[in-house]
């Protein structure tokens, strides 16, 4: 088990040697992740784990990928997607062009879920989905639009619960235990690395999706990211967070209005 001061040493190394700043991540969660990697990769001591990270850039990529949580699914919380369909996309439909940012998109399951919503609302042709993550590896997976076949049955159920009326499997082709989503969906997506800790706003968006990313940050970093989102949202733009995330600790709260019962806020000033 890693000691508190050893966590500090690793975080300092990551910042000094590679410029990755995890010092404002949730400490309890980080500690658990580091213990997990330590056990998975069978390091006999902390010193050896630390040496490997400092000296091996290839290992660093694996370490950062394991340190950050990349668990995601399609149509998670179907009621949330239902609200996107009925409330948000309905409103955005009037715009000549729709820009959506998936911040911390991981392997892209939510980006493809959104593409399906836009397609069914007949809006995909005038939309652009920007998908960013700090991990180049997960973005590579997202860019390919190839996912494991195993969870598709559950995704299909969530899709139906979100108000989907088509045959979910019509959106992908299955082969050898994997599925590949329609390539015309991927044409509307732009994937790029972006670190919410250190990088700046890069466009103006109508909707920002950032679900279950802020839970990994402490309150100070959450505030920084909220400000970044605020700068990146156009007037009356929407911000969507995870089921247990909230603006209640943020100074921005008065400037946003929450949709009834949903983790979707609209910028009102």
């Amino acid at each position, binding site marked *: 088990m890693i000691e508190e001061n050893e966590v500090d040493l690793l975080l300092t190394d990551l910042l000094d040697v590679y410029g990755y700043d995890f010092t404002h991540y*949730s*400490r*309890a*969660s980080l*500690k*658990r*992740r580091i213990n997990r990697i330590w056990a998975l990769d069978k390091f006999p001591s902390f010193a050896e784990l630390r040496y490997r990270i400092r000296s091996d850039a290839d290992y660093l990529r694996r370490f950062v990928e394991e340190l950050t*949580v990349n*668990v995601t699914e399609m149509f998670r*919380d179907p*009621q949330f997607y239902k609200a996107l369909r009925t409330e948000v996309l309905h409103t955005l439909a009037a715009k000549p062009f729709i820009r959506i940012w998936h911040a911390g998109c991981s392997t892209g399951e939510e980006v493809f879920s959104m593409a399906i919503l836009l397609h069914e609302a007949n809006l995909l042709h005038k939309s652009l989905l920007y998908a960013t993550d700090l991990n180049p590896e997960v973005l590579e997976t997202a860019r390919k639009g190839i996912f494991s076949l195993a969870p598709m049955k559950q995704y299909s159920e969530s899709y139906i619960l979100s108000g989907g009326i088509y045959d979910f499997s019509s959106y992908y082709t299955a082969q050898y235990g994997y599925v590949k989503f329609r390539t015309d969906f991927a044409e509307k997506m732009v994937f790029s690395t972006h670190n919410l800790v250190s990088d700046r706003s890069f466009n103006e968006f109508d909707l920002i999706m950032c679900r*279950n990313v*802020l*839970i*990994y940050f*402490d*309150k100070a970093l*959450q505030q920084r990211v909220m400000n970044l989102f605020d700068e990146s949202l156009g007037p009356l733009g929407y911000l969507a967070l*995870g*089921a*247990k*995330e*909230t603006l*209640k*600790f943020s100074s921005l709260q008065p400037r946003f209005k929450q949709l009834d019962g949903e983790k979707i806020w609209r910028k009102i000033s």
Partner: protein
Amino acid sequence: MAKNKLTPACEAVVIGGSTGSIEVLLSLLPHLPASLSFALIIVVHRKNTADSTLANLLSLKTNSPLYEVDDKDGIKPGNIYLAPADYHLLIEKNRVFALDDSEKINYSRPSIDVTFESAADVYGPALVGILLSGANADGSLGMTAIKKAGGTLVVQQPETAQVGFMPQQAILTNDVDYVLDVSGLIAFLNSLNSVY
């Protein structure tokens, strides 16, 4: 209880359970004082839905404020907290909750082990861990962590549990301090409550 004179006053109680544990909670909660001197943190396995039916059900049975945890909620004595469905529940050193949606552990999210280990890290000897009815081995490693940090272990008497496997596992793998039936659990929790 004599033991509590030797150890620091209880700051938090974590309760874990799976199949058959909701019934135990429903009979326990009405018998606790309305002003608890510790925070009561509940982690039970349940379906992956974001609805708050369980929180509503439990809050009907207690006069203490009961919350389903939102990210970064502060932990206060006197309150009862319920781990939300589909997230692991962790605790930061500054006594705020942190949620985590990483991989399931023992097919479970929330995982009892995750919360117990994290709570042991923060509260040390001022923590009591209670494990109730359930059909898998989640919680046993968490109990080990609590014991190692100096905390107190309590397990529902397996014969009185709807499913005895989870408490039984904890007894087999840990040096448990108390094995109690429901009325014993009620008496124990009341004995923890120090009067200001």
